[in-house]
């Protein structure tokens, strides 16, 4: 991930100004292969591994029951957590979650929540008393750039295949799964647009990421509506750039959606 601010790498900038990239891709082109595999852990209610180029993230869903929050008495809950494992980059260190990791989880969470991907009302067992909790955990395995898009894709893939565990007398029978899927209403894709100099590009690799000046993550549902955004980095976007970035994200995200619905 990038948060190094304006640490420009002359060579990367030079290439970008010439409308080329270090690995020869178009500005709107994701790395290949984009791979999604399922059932990373047979203990999870749902899990998925996503590789975009050499970037790799895994996500898993565990479920539990609990009392609802006072403001959503008739809804289940989604709790998203991420860990930038020190195994995945020399820059990630062990210890309590740092802001970068918290931001990653929150960007992914908002895309899922605000797009209404999960029908949380169907996860209510008894209003005001007992609801399902979805515990979504994201782990980075190899950071070769653009962790946000890979993390969001892994999270969404894991949720799409997740099933409810067995419930008996209000107790979850851990390890016993039903065939009932977690109720899914839509499929958002998070696509991040990176700004290097005056150019907007998608899916930066690690070398490019060091030159990124700013980024804008956009969560888009299948009908093209935007449900969540997050701007990061040390410089701004003009209004025109925001508009182009959203347009670019809408188009480029189809490359990820295609893999998900394969």
């Amino acid at each position, binding site marked *: 991930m990038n948060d190094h601010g304006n640490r420009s790498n002359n060579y990367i900038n030079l290439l970008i100004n010439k409308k080329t990239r270090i690995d020869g891709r178009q500005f709107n082109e994701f790395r290949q292969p984009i791979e999604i595999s399922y059932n*990373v*852990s*047979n*203990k*999870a*209610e749902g*899990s998925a591994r996503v590789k975009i180029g*050499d970037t*790799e993230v*895994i996500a*898993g*869903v*565990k479920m*539990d029951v609990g009392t609802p929050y006072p403001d959503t008495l008739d809804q289940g809950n989604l709790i998203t*957590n991420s*860990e930038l*494992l*020190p*195994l*995945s*980059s*020399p820059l990630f260190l*062990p210890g*309590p979650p740092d802001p970068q990791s918290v931001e990653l989880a929150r960007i992914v969470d908002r895309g899922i929540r605000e797009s209404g991907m999960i029908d949380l009302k169907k996860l209510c067992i008894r209003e005001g008393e007992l609801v399902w909790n979805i*515990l979504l*955990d994201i*782990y980075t*395995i*190899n*950071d*070769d750039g653009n962790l946000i898009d890979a993390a969001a894709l892994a999270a969404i893939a894991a949720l799409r295949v997740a099933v409810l565990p067995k419930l008996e007398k209000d107790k979850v029978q*851990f*390890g016993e799964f039903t065939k009932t899927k977690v109720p899914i209403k839509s499929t958002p894709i998070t696509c991040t647009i990176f700004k290097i100099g005056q150019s907007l590009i998608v899916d930066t690799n*690690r070398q490019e990421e060091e030159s990124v000046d700013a980024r804008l993550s956009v969560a888009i549902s299948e009908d093209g509506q935007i449900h969540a955004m997050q701007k990061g980095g040390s410089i701004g976007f003009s209004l025109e750039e925001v508009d182009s970035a959203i347009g670019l994200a809408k188009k480029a995200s189809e490359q990820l959606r295609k893999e998900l619905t394969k």
Partner: protein
Amino acid sequence: MTYSKRFDGRKFDEVRELEAKVGIIKRAAGSAMFRMGKTVAIAAVYGPRELFPSFLQDPKKGKLKCIYDLLSFSVTERKRPGPSRRSTEISMVTVDALEPVLDLSKFAYTGIDIYVYITQADAGTRTAGINAASLALADAGIPMKDLISSVAVGKISDKICVDLTKEEEDHPEGATDLPVAMGTRTGQVTLLQMDGNMSQEEIKEALKMAKKACEGIKEVQVKALKDKYKEALK
């Protein structure tokens, strides 16, 4: 009652199906996956690199550090993220299991970090983790006198069995668990833990079985290391 036939039909001295792959995490200096049946461990090594806090720096040799943890969804009941007393202890014994075969004298003042994560757990996670970590260290090019291979031996009812599954560990007649790691070339036992109930004779038998199992594990490890370079030559 005796445990006359194993739940999964294995022989008493037979390890589960093994799979090993080296070089799975490109950003790391060395990395590996090791699978024993349904238990899957991944490990990455970073370093030698600058070591903080600086009071840990040793002018005579590099400092080996390890973090072992379970991914939250690798177990039946979600494991809360972050270190636990269990994972802290396993991290420590993993260092002690690996350090005896390493020559860190060339890496004075530096740190070498091993990160081990269990993506799917079905008992024997520390042993799978040590097997993966040993491969990752070799992949990182850290000088080693031997590979470390690791397996747990247990007793179910009155039967000594190698490489227990979770189902076996939870056997109603109680399973004794005795995880072992060793360098099979040097013959040194570098990890030895036990909980349960065994006689001296039984421990002797268990360790003999562990040694044989570790020899088989080492073959799989060596093959995985060689395969990486065969792949590269293609």
